[in-house]
């Protein structure tokens, strides 16, 4: 049986991440990896595996947070983490949305968005850095990442095929030629 204190800790952790996710989920990736490592003993490698499962999922890939909940506290943990991560930001957005209907567009909304955009881009760079530091461990993975980057930047192929194709290619190379690269 999972102790209540673990559940509360999980809820508070993901609830806070929810409210800090300016500009979307990627902005909190680095922080999430760090907190899960420090406070819940989830290694960066495990974090990366779960993150990769999320990449293959339909819809928002941040639904992968529920896997951490499941790992730490079973189905109840998955539900709790899902609620904690998606509810606070949604409730906030709901009320601000209603408020906006009364106030209307102001120069400050634009200013707030302009101010938050570069911060969230910086935090996204931190997310890339955090994921890349564990994901790129040699010439092969670096080559795969660069191919994916080009595939997404310069073709119109659906990114999920890029991810699956390149992920599969990487797995095949490592499976048949484990010594290579």
């Amino acid at each position, binding site marked *: 049986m999972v102790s209540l204190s673990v559940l509360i800790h999980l809820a508070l952790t993901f609830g806070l991440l929810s409210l800090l996710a300016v500009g979307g989920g990627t902005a909190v990736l680095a922080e999430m990896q760090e907190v899960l490592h420090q406070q819940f003993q989830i290694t960066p490698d495990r974090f990366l595996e779960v993150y990769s499962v999320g990449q293959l999922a339909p819809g928002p890939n941040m639904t*992968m947070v529920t*896997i951490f909940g499941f790992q730490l506290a079973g189905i109840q943990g998955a539900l709790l983490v899902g609620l904690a991560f998606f509810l606070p930001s949604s409730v906030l957005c709901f009320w601000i*949305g209603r408020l906006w209907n009364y106030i209307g567009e102001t120069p400050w909304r*634009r200013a707030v968005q302009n101010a938050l955009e570069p911060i969230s881009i910086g*935090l996204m760079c931190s997310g890339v850095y955090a994921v890349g530091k564990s994901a790129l461990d040699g010439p092969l993975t670096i080559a795969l990442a660069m191919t994916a980057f080009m595939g997404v930047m310069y073709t119109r192929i659906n990114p999920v095929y890029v991810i699956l194709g390149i992920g599969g290619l990487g797995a095949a190379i490592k499976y048949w030629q484990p010594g290579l690269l």
Partner: protein
Amino acid sequence: MNEPAEPIPPPSLWDIFLEFLLIGAISFGGGIVAYQKILLTEKRRWLNDDEFMACLAISQTMPGLNAVNIAVLTGDRLRGVLGALAAAIGLLLPGVTFVLVAGILYLKNTDHHLANLLLAGVAAAATGLLSAITYRLGHRQFNHFKSLLIVFASFYLMSIMKLSLPMVLLIMVPISLLLFRPKAPKASKVSKA
């Protein structure tokens, strides 16, 4: 019937749930907002372009995933708080089901050499994808000194100084707001065209 100003009757909660369930199930590979735009404004006509852009703007300003925020705002517009709930649950349900089934299989199964190899490849590819998305969203910022400074400072505090995210935001949000505050009487265009 005697309200010609309201051409389309508001959809039922079930309709809202199903529409977002569809979006949540078919929007593979990110870009969910694009699916929402097409399905909500063109196929369903639940929102016009202006309304959608207003929802998107609020979604981008508020914390949380843009796609989820858009679902909440659209649902609220159509059917109030229950509509918001139906839309958000519909959007997230397919993904949550997928990751839980995949995650449980993965955690329960002890021998997953091949799965590990695939996930390692996916992780590498995802790093490339994430860089591409960051670049696409951010390339405008990279051309302006003011924005670039904020981008770099946020990254530096988070990844190099290893400050916690609340601390980074506590430092960066006031600075950035000050730099990007609305200009009084003679407004000039800020960063975005």
